[in-house]
């Protein structure tokens, strides 16, 4: 069965076609997947609203009086948030092998990156608020709703991570046989990261296209 024809035949045989896939996931995993799916849809609706209002508005966007968003801060924010998923992955791998120190240090690193992100966002807000607010016009409303709602999600994610860290520091919580919650929180954190990429594209990059 080494030739190509054999491979195709094997993959399209009755047995291969009846492979059970997906299989063996836990209830908690599925629960988190569904939760993330519904949250992702919520963000899709908000971003969709952004594009809808933008295209209904007319040629100048952002509306007169508001300049197109600067890119430096958001790019730095991206550079902080997106890599913050790596320590979580590393931590999760660690606890699967029962290495508690990896769990703890990985989570701590992610906490630092996440808090940095929020601090950067706060400084960006401080600057923007002098220019326009949520009540200036629909653009302002969209900007603060979408970024603020994402910021709230970062905060929720950080709460989860902090909670895991606290539970792990207390001891007796996680190990190679029990790491489900770590994985679920990690999934949520990756999701928050990905949403940020979509927001970066929508709010910061798309007005320049």
């Amino acid at each position, binding site marked *: 069965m080494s030739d190509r024809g054999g491979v195709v035949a094997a993959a399209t045989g009755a047995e291969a076609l009846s492979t059970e896939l997906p299989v063996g996931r836990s209830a908690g995993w599925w629960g988190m997947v*569904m939760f993330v799916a519904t949250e992702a849809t919520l963000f899709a*609706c908000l971003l969709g609203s952004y594009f809808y209002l933008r295209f209904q508005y007319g040629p100048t966007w952002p509306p007169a009086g508001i300049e197109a968003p600067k890119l430096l801060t958001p790019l730095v924010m991206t550079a902080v948030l997106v890599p913050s998923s790596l320590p979580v992955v590393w931590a999760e791998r660690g606890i699967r092998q029962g290495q508690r120190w990896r769990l703890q240090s990985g989570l701590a690193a992610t906490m630092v990156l996440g808090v940095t992100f929020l601090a950067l966002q706060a400084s960006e807000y401080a600057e923007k608020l002098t220019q326009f607010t949520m009540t200036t016009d629909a653009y302002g409303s969209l900007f603060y709703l979408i970024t603020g709602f994402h910021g709230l999600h970062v905060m929720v994610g950080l709460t989860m991570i902090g909670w895991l860290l606290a539970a792990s520091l207390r001891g007796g*919580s996680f190990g190679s046989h029990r790491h489900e*919650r770590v994985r679920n929180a990690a999934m949520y954190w990756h999701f928050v990261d990905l949403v940020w990429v979509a927001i970066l594209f929508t709010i910061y990059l798309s007005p320049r296209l």
Partner: protein
Amino acid sequence: MSTTTTPPPGVSAQDLARLAEHWAERPSLRGWFSTVDHKRIGRRYLVTAGFFFVLAGLSALVMRTQLARPEAGVVSPQEYNQLFSMHGTAMIFLFATPMLFGFGNFLVPLMIGSRDMAFPRLNAFGYWVFLFAGLFMWASLPFGAAPNNGWFAYAPLNQEQHNPGLHMDVYALGLLFLGISTTAASINFIVTALKLRAPGMSLNRVPLFVWAIVATAFMVIFALPALNADNLMLFLDRRFGTHFFDPSAGGNVLLWQHLFWIFGHPDVYIIVMPALGIVSAVLPAFTRRGVVGYPLIVLSIVSISIISFGVWVHHMFATGLPQLSYSFFSAASTIITIPSGIQIFAWLATMLLGRLVLRVPLLFVIGFVVTFVLGGFTGAMFAVTAFDQQVTDSYFVVAHFHYVLIGGAVFPMLAGIYYWLPKITGRMYHERLGRWAFWLVFAGMHVTFFPMHLYGLFGMPRRVYTYRSEPGWDGWNLVSTLGSYLLAVGLLLVLVGVVHAVRRGRPAPPDPWEGDSLEWSTASPPEPYNFPALPRVHSLHPAWDERTAESLGAGATADRILSDGRRTLVTSELDAHPERAVQMPESTLKPLVLAGALLIFFTSMLLAWYPAAAVAALAVVATIAVWLWPPRRPDEELGVTG
């Protein structure tokens, strides 16, 4: 497991005693508030949704009384606005979906052969949130602050400057609050059906009702966020001065409408789909055969739940889209009728090929087919654009959607109530009383709503609190009103029947109908642990299947009895191979506390007590953190190396 030296198979008396010890909840006040048993929670959903149905129905009776004669003065225009808005909102959000989720909660674990839902505490939480959100919305009515802008709350009328007062804040916050419950329940249904099916119940052996509930839950997961986003923006617009729906500052009123119908169209199917699942569950028992074309019904359920997302532009006739882009959506709305038709024909074929047993549940199923098909027929008439523009916003529309909703949801629910009453309460209902109820409901429904087609065509607009005397209007309006009283009497008889059964009914045997699904293999009402031994499923109709019956009795093995602890079995996603036994949570008060904190949060937001809202939000976070806090375990058990 056949080669081990375990004690002889079958459930022993010791097993039963241990199961009872681990699962039973002592009757106490605390036990009442802290239960996580899916059967008690399901029952509560049914009763609470029934209560909201009564409130919404009474609102409708007041409206019909007002409209019986031209220029009557029973209620003021402002009161009338609140009545029809609360009637519509409550019927859709607080009655239809929760009622069907109540059936789902009670039945899904029984039908798939499990001991509870996948997340029992989340389930309890969902119920409390539903109850509180419903009370939150209804409580506004006595204060004259109820939603007053119709159930779909179009912009710009939902905006602060056009509609001051708390009315639409109650709507936005109430639905956001309720959305938590609906989403939680949906996730729970999906995971339960994926992971807790009895060994052997591969996807091709899953009961149609469970398919329907799962498809509904998927629709909720992907449709409800649109409504939540919409209501979030509405609340921000009204309270904090944003401009999402305000054209004078770059917003757009159509944004509300689009988002609403992205949710609203699937929502029609969210309401009807599980009800159709009830029909598929009831039919086998009263036709003495399986539903014809099982894979085709699964196909119809799955494809409807997908296509329903592609038809929302349907509701936006007057918006001047390019015709071409409109046609992509109308292609979907044309084709979606095919799977709906498949189901109807499959049921008709089942009835033709089977031996009919004409009991009350079957009567309601027949009433459903007649009414629903008529509603579908008037629906097809809307596809003619000219006709649609003629009757839009007239009573013709009101007639149409009551045929669809009462035919498609209420009749199947009533069939389900009579069918599962023996299982839920352990008592039989009174057959004669049930027949009377059926005929009164059926006649009342048609006498109320059929004339609405007529005076709708004669030009009577909907959502008017009164009307001038016009030829063709007065008489038929009076007929409608009389019909609605008849309908109310019929529904009252249903209630009397239920109370009578609970109080005086003959004790029900485990399987009074010789039904085909697993709930009939349990006691009536089921023990707290549902099954002494979890079944091993061998066919699509396990209760008609001897090998499955054997697996529950003499063939029961320790790996499916699991009497040492509060445990149930987790199986694989597609083919239900046993994976492992898992520990189920004990009863707890935390779900109630969490829901209470949310109630305080939403109430404070409504009344603009923001500091209180902040405290409540912190309480929410704290409760969740405590809820999930892991118990301390020894390192060896956890597997820690360093």
